[in-house]
């Protein structure tokens, strides 16, 4: 049985995809029985989603993007 500190490391470092089948299964089984690790994984997902939301919803960056695109379009060839 995988331990909590191993599960968190595998998930957060994304080494799960390259891990063997037994490890991947072990993580899934662990998550079924350990609600703290489930919570941890859910929180990491929420952080990723929030980071994407932050990037899309930033008006200052949107303005900078338009300014740069205009500048590039006006570059002489």
């Amino acid at each position, binding site marked *: 049985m995988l331990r909590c500190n191993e599960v968190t490391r595998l998930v957060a470092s994304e080494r799960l995809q390259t891990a063997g089948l037994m490890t991947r299964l072990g993580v899934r089984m662990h998550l079924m029985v350990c609600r703290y690790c489930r919570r941890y994984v859910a929180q990491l997902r929420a952080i990723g989603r929030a980071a994407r939301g932050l990037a899309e919803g930033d008006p200052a960056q949107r303005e900078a993007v338009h300014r740069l695109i205009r500048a590039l379009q006006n*570059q002489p060839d």
Partner: protein
Amino acid sequence: MGEAPERTEGVRRRDPVVMDAVVRECLPALLRGARAAGLAQDRAEDLVQSTFLVFFRRAEEFDGRARCLTWLYGIMLRKLAEDRRSVSREEPTDQIEAIMDARFGSDGQWLRPPGGPEWELEQGEIRRMLRECLETVPERQRLVFTLREVEGLTTEEICNLLEVSSNNLGVLLYRARNRLRECLEGKGLKGNSDAQV
């Protein structure tokens, strides 16, 4: 992950429509990457602009083996490395490792479990806090986190771009994510009491 053949051809011929589409598509991501790498807004904008100028100049060298975005990131990060001392390997030790270790007992079980609920319902609040928390993440970790989570590059693409091993990338991602999680938890993003030990 490669680029579509039609687009590769368009870039190589410097087809204005294709080039325009590439700029519109990739520029926001590059700007976010430059900011994540720790540049101030004006320097980030300069870097992105000069990256595209290199891209236009060397368009016929584009072979489509990598996506346009990855190619552009490669140009940008090389330019960035020229400006700075070349990006070194990730430090073997980092505060966050000790912080995480202290959360587990010698049996590897949670001693101090993650606080708070799953944060599913607090997206707005997380976003607000995350902006501040991102500032506390070292540049290299922040860049890797942004490329992966925001821009959706594959781990393989990031390894090639930054010339790091997949193990090293794993360490960077682990540290970035846990720094952010710890920071958010520290800011009081918790709700239910069973997390208190």
